[in-house]
């Protein structure tokens, strides 16, 4: 049945958890594109036939107008026209079905790619430029390129403004927060102190400094 594979693609996109990506389904994608090309192969001859029918009808009408014809001949000509019109209708309906299925497949494909692209866009806000491996293997090559381009675009905007927009995601309660370091990072120069970030160390850091480490998962905030 036309459109079944495309709706499978869309269901796959919707069934995962919101914000999580599944591996890019290359096989199903290729099958839907093949189906589209199949539709086109059916569509083109049908359109040609419709055009032929229309030309025939036009010729008939012109010949009727130009020549003076008898009553009998007129009736015969009307009957022929009806035959042509019926044949044309069948072709028109066939062409319509192929056209609509093609458009539906296109919509499903675009929805699949577009929704994945939105998830990738939101990733660009959380992660800086390097994707963690588990996410990277789920993307197609074009999506990886898109992520890089998008990160570069965000970067160009922030550098023009001179204001880092990826920190400060939640409203601040205290200027300094208590954090525990989860991984060995070593000695880092922060905005107001030089800190040795060894594993399991508990420190008081400026919020904006700590946020980038927290979002990468290298630190956790201790509340209370």
């Amino acid at each position, binding site marked *: 049945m036309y459109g079944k594979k495309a709706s499978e693609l869309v269901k796959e996109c919707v069934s995962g958890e919101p914000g999580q990506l599944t591996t890019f389904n290359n096989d199903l994608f290729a099958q839907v594109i093949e189906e*589209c090309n199949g539709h086109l192969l059916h569509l083109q001859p049908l359109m040609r036939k419709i055009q032929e029918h229309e030309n025939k009808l036009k010729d008939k009408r012109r010949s009727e107008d130009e020549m003076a014809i008898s009553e009998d001949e007129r009736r015969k000509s009307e009957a022929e026209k009806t035959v042509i019109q019926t044949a044309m209708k069948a072709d028109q309906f066939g062409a319509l079905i192929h056209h609509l299925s*093609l458009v539906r497949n*296109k919509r499903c494909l675009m929805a699949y790619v*577009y929704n994945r*692209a939105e998830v990738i866009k939101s990733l660009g806000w959380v992660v800086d430029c390097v994707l963690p491996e588990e996410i990277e293997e789920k993307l197609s090559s*074009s999506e990886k390129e898109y992520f890089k381009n998008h990160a570069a675009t965000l970067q*160009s905007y922030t550098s023009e403004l001179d204001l880092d927009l990826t920190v400060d995601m939640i*409203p601040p309660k205290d200027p300094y927060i208590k954090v525990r370091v989860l991984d060995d990072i070593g000695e880092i120069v922060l905005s107001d102190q030089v800190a040795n970030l060894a594993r399991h160390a508990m420190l008081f850091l400026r919020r*904006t400094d700590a946020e980038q480490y927290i979002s990468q998962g290298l630190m956790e905030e201790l509340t209370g």
Partner: protein
Amino acid sequence: MEPGAGESSATDDYESLISTTDSELLKRAWRNEKAAPEILKFEAALVQRSRQQIQLMEETVEEFAKNGVDPLTVSLYQMDLDRTLFLLRSYLRTRLQKIEKCVLHIQKTAELWNRLSKQEQKFAVRCAGDLTQHLEQTVLSKLPDQYQSHLKQSGASEGDDMVPEPKLDIYIICRSKKFLGAFQLDDSGEEPVNIEADDLYALPYKSIKPLVESGQIDLV
């Protein structure tokens, strides 16, 4: 807290004075931007002034820290600075995320395009280019000729029907500062709504769009 009859004018003046400070204006712009479904006008002057003030505060805090002023005072100033910075960043971030969501629609609509700042327009152009290139690479180049547009469904479509648009008829909660009287919500012949000062209303965004633009109504 009802102000006394004789003091009401003084309180009004105080309130109007407070409401025009930059931090209040920034808070208001930030709230409106967060609540509205489409992008609002960019407050260029406000952003400029806020950044200058933030810079001034940073220098003041540094001086205090150097001169050994009471640490509590320093941390209070620091706190205020952080909060203003957060407001500014969140305002710009919300706008950017709205642009990302509907970038093709914004490019097409002149009214929305004019609401962006220059840097945001550059960002929107690049963002749209990235998205179009990605879509073309993945899907559109493999489809037949008449169906390769990312804006139209096929060559036979009348308008640009593949562009996602923001939903303008969602309900939002709003409050007006002054008494606005009877306001006709839409053309369907329903009764006009009486908008009083300081009352909360839940109305569809489409109906009160002009009021939000002129600043008479605030979104909550």
